[in-house]
């Protein structure tokens, strides 16, 4: 294990992507470069995973002063929370290069850049550095969506870009406000995350800054009522972009809440947690109901993904260790299951040139392997026991009931909506009578089948034997509730039915 492993994981894909963009590489060369680089990142990440000590604090820290007059540094590190999002990105992204073999050079190059930028956002421990990666990761999405998207891509591109940048810039103001407050309280400039947690913020401006952060993350997650960009963007984007957006980028939104908002704005967070959990539940219901009504396969999955992000958000907002741990577990579960679903849908679309659900039928008999994979990912997505989705959802519901019984019950029952649309979809697409369009449908090739296999195995493994994963997450989540200055201990009573249950001793 060498010292700058995080930097390498971040900048190797970015540099490779930029080189591809300026070079006259052919499609095949681009694809294999992308494959090689993302596999290299995967190997490094696995190495990182095995070397991870589960101390709960940041590990693999790299810290180099950058702008000394403002105390900004190039500061990287991962803990149990970020480790798993990093792993999800590293495990899932190489699949794209195996599955989509004939796309343009810019497609692969942008995928590499977005991988590096997302990894950077996950590893950054300095707020300015985080912000930079956070903004940079939008640019490849902008170009992929605009260049390679569907017919109505332009409005969708502008919508997602303006929406996200607007949110990010408000967050920038909030970050600067934190930096200036830190300067005022401790008489030195610093933007690193753990220093910010020592801040003692009160007053209305603190609440405004809190919402500056929350809106930026809520747009990315997306949390109701900031979800309106999602259906268009997810539907119009090329499959790999939808995959990146839903499987990883949305998770970075939740990660941002856990990493930056909860430790810094603990008081504001406790004050508004109930509101936020209700928004999460409303988002779950709304997007779930919308998913039932969709005729377009991809749009349905988009709403389904948004609905499940609502569950994860509820877990992150419940302010107790079960819900938070469940939320992070569910992040990986959702990344793997939704990622697989979107990729399988991409294959389906490529082979049958349609996305309308009623055009499909009887695929199970034509392509059994495809159907089995889809079934496993789908069942994980709805949280069937024995799959990864169950563990996360169970812990979130448990934590939500501890936090507030109404929220808990609503979360638990809303999960049923997911089962409705998913099973109905499965019935219409994979069973029922055959359709002329699906007559010629070919099953997954050997390469495709082997590409999906590790992730499918991971889904099952995480559902049956979660302990090795949980043991890496728990020290960090426990630390979140153990900080000396934490005011969650004084959470206002109206936010919980029973005060003693909201905090961990």
């Amino acid at each position, binding site marked *: 294990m060498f010292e700058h492993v995080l930097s390498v994981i971040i900048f190797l894909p970015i540099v490779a992507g930029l080189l591809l963009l300026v070079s006259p590489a052919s499609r095949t060369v681009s694809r294999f470069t992308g494959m090689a680089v993302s596999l290299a990142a995967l190997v490094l990440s696995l190495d990182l995973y095995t070397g991870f000590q589960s101390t709960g604090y940041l590990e693999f820290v790299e810290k180099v002063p950058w702008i000394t007059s403002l105390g900004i540094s190039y500061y990287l590190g991962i803990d149990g929370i970020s480790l798993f999002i990093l792993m999800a990105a590293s495990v899932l992204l190489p699949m794209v290069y195996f599955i989509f073999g004939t796309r343009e050079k810019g497609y692969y190059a942008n995928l590499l850049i977005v991988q590096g930028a997302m990894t950077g956002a996950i590893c950054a421990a300095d707020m300015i550095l985080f912000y*930079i990666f956070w903004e940079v990761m939008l640019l490849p999405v902008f170009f992929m969506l605009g260049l390679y998207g569907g017919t109505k891509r332009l409005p969708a591109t502008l919508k997602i870009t303006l929406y996200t940048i*607007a949110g990010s810039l408000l967050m920038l103001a909030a970050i*600067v406000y934190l930096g200036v407050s830190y300067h005022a309280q401790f008489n030195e400039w610093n933007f690193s995350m753990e220093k910010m947690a020592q801040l003692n913020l009160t007053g209305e401006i603190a609440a405004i800054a809190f919402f500056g952060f929350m809106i930026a993350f809520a747009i990315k997650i997306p949390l109701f009522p900031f979800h309106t960009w999602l259906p268009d963007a997810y539907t119009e984007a090329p499959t790999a972009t939808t995959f990146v957006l839903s499987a990883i980028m949305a998770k970075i939104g939740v990660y941002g809440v856990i990493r930056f908002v909860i430790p810094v704005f603990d008081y504001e967070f406790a004050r508004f947690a109930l509101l936020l959990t209700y928004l999460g539940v409303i988002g779950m219901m709304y997007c779930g109901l919308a998913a039932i009504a969709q005729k377009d396969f991809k749009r349905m999955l988009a709403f389904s993904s948004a609905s499940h992000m609502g569950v994860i958000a509820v877990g992150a907002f419940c302010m107790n260790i079960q819900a938070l741990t469940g939320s992070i577990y569910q992040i990986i579960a959702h990344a793997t299951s939704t990622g697989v679903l979107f990729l399988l849908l991409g294959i389906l679309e490529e082979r049958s040139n349609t996305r309308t659900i009623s055009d499909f039928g009887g695929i199970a008999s034509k392509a059994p392997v495809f159907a089995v994979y889809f079934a496993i990912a789908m069942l994980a997505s709805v949280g069937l026991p024995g799959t990864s989705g169950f563990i996360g959802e169970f812990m979130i519901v448990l934590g939500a009931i501890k936090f507030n019984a109404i929220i808990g019950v609503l979360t638990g029952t809303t999960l049923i909506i997911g089962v409705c649309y998913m099973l109905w979809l499965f019935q219409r697409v994979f069973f029922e009578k055959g359709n002329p369009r699906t007559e010629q449908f070919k099953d997954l090739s050997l390469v495709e089948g082997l590409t999906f296999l590790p992730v499918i195995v991971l889904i099952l493994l995480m559902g049956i034997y979660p302990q090795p994963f949980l043991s890496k997450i728990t020290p960090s989540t426990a630390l979140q509730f153990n900080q000396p200055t934490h005011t969650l201990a004084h959470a206002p009573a109206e936010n919980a039915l029973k005060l003693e249950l909201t905090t961990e001793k």
Partner: protein
Amino acid sequence: MTNDLMLLMPLIVVGVGAITLMIASTYNKLSHEVAAFVTAGLFALAFLVQVTSCIAGDTILFSDIFSGILVASKFSKAAGLIILACGFFTALSSQSYFKQNDFCSTEYYCLIAYAAAGMLLLTMAQELITIFIALEIMSLAIYILVGYDRDNVISAEAVLKYLILGAFAGTFLAMGSALIYGAVGSTKFVKIGEYIASVGLTQSPLMIGGAFFIFVALLFKAAAFPFHAWVIDVYDGASVPVTGYMATGLKTAIFAVFANFLVTDGALQQKWITFLFYIAVLTMFAGNLIAIGQQSLKRMLAASGIVHSGYLLIALVAVGSTEFTGSVIAYYLAAYAAGTLGIFCALSYLGGANETRKTFDDFKGLAQSRPYSAAAITVFLLSMAGIPPTAGFMGKFYIITSAINAGQVTLAVLGILSSIISIWYYLRLIVNMYFYNAEEQFNEPVLSSFAPACTLALVVCVFAISLYPIMI
């Protein structure tokens, strides 16, 4: 003495060079291409001299001869470097521009050098009459440059508008100086500052009137609300390199004066802070409203220049309250200059003969035939929009930090809102370049590689300024 001479040397190099060039241009032997290279060489030489000269604190130049009217400081040095770099890139991109447009003569280049001399003088001036003279040196050269294409009606209209309004602004400055002299008995910033500190700003009607007139003149030149209306037509009428030069070099010089004036008269700044606050806000939003509706690229860039003036005014509001505000302004000017000059460099070889490509639609599909140029323009636009990791982001970040640090949270938030709006019209060009199919071929040969080389150099600058923010 030697140190003073070295500090003044960039100004001397540019000024003497300009005069020599003017004399040389009476001979037919001097082709305008040679003139372009000589001018660029002058700027490069002056730049190197400026970089190597070290400044410890504020140095009063030739205090016995000039009696303290010229002061070199770190801020003036930084502003001078930006101006010289702007001149360098303008001269080289003009060379490419005149391959496709045929109205050049050698005097064009010596006018650029004259304007730069005026700008350099402005950055160091600490006295009102000197400011007036420097401003006129600069403005006269710029007037001629704006109207250089004499056969072009739009250009003639632009120079007429600019000349009349600019002359008014100059007169206002002279009037304001006279009134202040009447009150203070001196035109030096130091004396004015002492006077305000002891007597107060509002005690004397002469002082109020004088300060008002000077602000009007400076706000006019800085294209701030409500004196911003001329910018659109003038920038549109001037040829591309001149527009780029005005948008960057001229703005740098004006904001340098503005900051010097406000910093020295700290009390003045306190009194006018509310006034500047509203000016900044209105400038940003007026600029944005104008920019959103434009079809022509140059007009959009002109309007976005107004918006950037608004951001710089934010920094001016925060001037004096923190230790690093001067460098914030310099940094932002550098970042803005790199981005804006870059776009104008690119336009000067992409615009086609007689600037046929003007509107957003004309640049549809540029990325397919000219991927590198389109990528460069994208970088510049992202920098102007303030997206990391470009210099524009860092500049905006410093401005917001200095504003919040000075207690101007509202102003910072309004600045952020304004930059959210501005994303729309910057993205629009990127969308046009990348996401549409080409309606025309951009296949005319590039006759000179200097403008593309400048563009590339400025792309490097945009990232370098961002990643190594040395001036802060």
